[in-house]
């Protein structure tokens, strides 16, 4: 993903420059020229055409004169007539906008192809409804397209009004008209989507960045501003984007790709879905760097960071186009509207960025802006993939080494502990031995009471039998005797 990106970007960037090499940005609609060069080019072509025409006329005139001077009067009249026609033609050229006047066959066919595709889709979709309903819908849309063709030269505000009025009228008609009463609200939404898509794609050349406004100027300003802010880091914006993590890096790249994609889509809804996809990646980045879901406090800085890193082509023109010609309901509600609003915020923030918004001193800010100095943290993100990978690997290795050292230290400690344990155990045993010495007591001899021994002598002499006349006494004595 990351490896592919630069080539993709490269093509886009080179495509964007004016063919004339004037340094301004060109546009495919103007045959790859910027608006100024294109105007000049058209002027030149027109002049050449007129010259050719007049030459032809002169030739014809001369021929006529040669043929018959008699007819000179007639010839003069004819020339006048031709001239008049040429004049009207010229005025017509003037009236219609330059890009309409000199149709570029290749570009036009391309547009047609895309329009045709949408038209076919729309027709397919309309098949499910009753014929009068479908016809009415097509008629209304066609009316607007015709009106737009007629007013192609009008200021963009008028075009905006035309289109927005159309959305409201169409919405109201579909809400209240009997032809549409069978339609579910989902159908109505889809039809509105189709209407928007068809109109904007078909009329893209005259609606996107028209010559009557200064969108192009703003695009250039924005481009320059973002370029001079290349040094802004995530930390300065308070985002937690850690670009050194490969996963985050991939997500950032994906977000950047999506936001650049905006310019290649034509319908506002497609442009918006690019922006939404871009933010989905940003939300994922935030989710990885913190616990809990992303809130606006995290999202806006991350979006600003993405815009700064992406420097999307014709950003202002695209935002203007979406604001002007998108269905109002889409911009007011829904996640797409919210995210688009955030993008507007991001753009405005970048336009009006000051040292305070980055928590820098005026001096620092000026130095960074003029390219005199580079903030200490920045620069890493511009490393090539290989170098970055190497740094990543080095970091991992260092980590591994640290862990190994820890394991070693712990093993040694364990060894020491075991040793100590052994010593202690020994010591303890010793202590116990000392405290309670082993004294072997003489074994107790079994004494045979009947045996003669010296100790027996110590015993008092046996009691002598007493003679008692009493019978009772007699029995006791017998017992005593027995005992002996």
């Amino acid at each position, binding site marked *: 993903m990351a490896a592919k990106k630069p080539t993709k970007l490269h093509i886009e960037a080179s495509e964007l420059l004016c063919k004339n090499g004037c340094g301004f940005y060109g546009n495919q609609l103007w045959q790859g020229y910027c608006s100024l060069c294109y105007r000049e080019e058209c002027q030149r072509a027109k002049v050449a055409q007129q010259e050719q025409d007049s030459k032809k006329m002169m030739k014809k005139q001369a021929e006529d004169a040669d043929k018959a001077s008699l007819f000179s009067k007639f010839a003069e009249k004819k020339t006048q007539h031709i001239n008049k026609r040429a004049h009207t033609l010229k005025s017509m050229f003037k009236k219609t906008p330059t890009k309409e006047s000199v149709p570029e066959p290749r570009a036009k066919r391309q547009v047609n192809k895309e329009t045709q595709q949408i038209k076919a889709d729309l027709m397919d979709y309309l098949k499910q409804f009753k014929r009068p309903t479908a016809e009415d819908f097509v008629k209304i849309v066609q009316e607007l397209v015709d009106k737009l063709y007629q007013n192609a030269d009008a200021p963009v*505000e008028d075009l*905006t*009004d035309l289109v*927005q*009025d159309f959305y*409201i009228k169409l*919405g*109201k008609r579909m*809400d209240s008209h009997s032809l549409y009463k069978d339609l579910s*609200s989902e159908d109505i939404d889809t039809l509105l989507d189709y209407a928007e898509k068809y109109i904007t794609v078909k009329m893209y050349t005259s609606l996107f960045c028209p010559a009557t406004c*200064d969108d192009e100027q*703003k695009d250039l*300003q924005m481009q320059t501003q973002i370029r001079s802010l290349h040094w802004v880091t995530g930390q300065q914006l*308070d985002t937690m984007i850690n670009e050194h993590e490969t996963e985050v890096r991939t997500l950032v790249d994906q977000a950047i790709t999506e936001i650049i994609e905006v310019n290649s889509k034509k319908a506002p809804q497609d442009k918006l879905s690019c922006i939404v996809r871009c933010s*989905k990646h940003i*939300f*994922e980045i*935030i*989710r990885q760097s913190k*616990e*809990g*879901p*992303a*809130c*606006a*406090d995290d*999202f*806006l*800085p991350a979006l600003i960071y993405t815009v700064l890193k992406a420097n999307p082509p014709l950003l*202002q023109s695209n*935002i*203007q186009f979406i*604001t*002007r010609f998108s269905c*109002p*309901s889409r*911009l*007011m*509600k*829904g*996640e797409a509207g*919210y*995210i688009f*609003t955030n993008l*507007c*915020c991001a*753009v*405005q*923030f970048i*336009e*009006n960025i000051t040292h*305070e*918004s980055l*928590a820098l001193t005026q001096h620092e800010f000026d130095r960074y802006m003029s390219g005199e100095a580079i903030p200490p943290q920045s620069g890493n993100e511009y490393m090539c993939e290989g170098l970055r990978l190497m740094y990543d690997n080095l970091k991992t290795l260092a980590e591994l080494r640290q862990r190994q050292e820890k394991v070693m230290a712990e093993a040694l400690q364990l060894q020491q502990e075991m040793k100590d344990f052994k010593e202690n155990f020994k010591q303890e045993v010793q202590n116990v031995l000392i405290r309670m010495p082993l004294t072997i007591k003489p074994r107790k001899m079994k004494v045979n009471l009947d045996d003669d021994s010296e100790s027996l002598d110590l015993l008092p002499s046996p009691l002598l039998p007493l003679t008692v006349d009493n019978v009772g006494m007699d029995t006791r004595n017998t017992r005593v005797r027995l005992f002996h």
Partner: protein
Amino acid sequence: MAGGGNRNFNFKAVLLGEGCVGKTSLVLRYVENKFNDKHLTTLQASFLTKKLNIGGKRVNLSIWDTAGQERFHALGPIYYRDSNGAILVYDITDEDSFQKVKSWVKELKKMLGNDICLCIAGNKIDLEKDRHVTVAEAEAYAASVGAKHFHTSAKLSKGIEEMFLELAKNMIEKADSDTATRPGTGKNNRKSVVVVDDSTPSRQAGGGGCCGGGGSS
């Protein structure tokens, strides 16, 4: 904007307030009924929707979180244009956040007049012992600007449901009275929206100056 006539209402409410006052917790408690929960279904809490049914009227409420950092203060007008309601959140333990609410209210009144329903939320009432903004002061202020005041706690799930419900009711009233006094305003409303959309870019074109405030006053 209450599109579709009487069918249902689509309302947009913005959450304003300094960072760390708990805007996100508040809305997550409301929409997901969770607090500091790691198992949330949403990837983000910056844009959430809630469907309500109030007296048989279906309301789609979109809640727009805004970046609360001071450096983004100037971007406010882009966020709150076309909103039907605003919830201004402050932290009862933080006097500064209440002052910030006051400045938001002033700005909203200036930019949108009375077209917007306001609710002020004194959040974190579970930390009552550290209170620095008195109840009386806050309620008096809210009354003076025509806003409803609520004491909320996302942690204890207090006052939040009531607040959003009240806001939705107010917004319905406003929408109803708007259509009653100016029938067929839908069109005009939308048209004015377009004009606003156009004016913003030209403001941007002016460059240099701070965005909303200066441009439209």
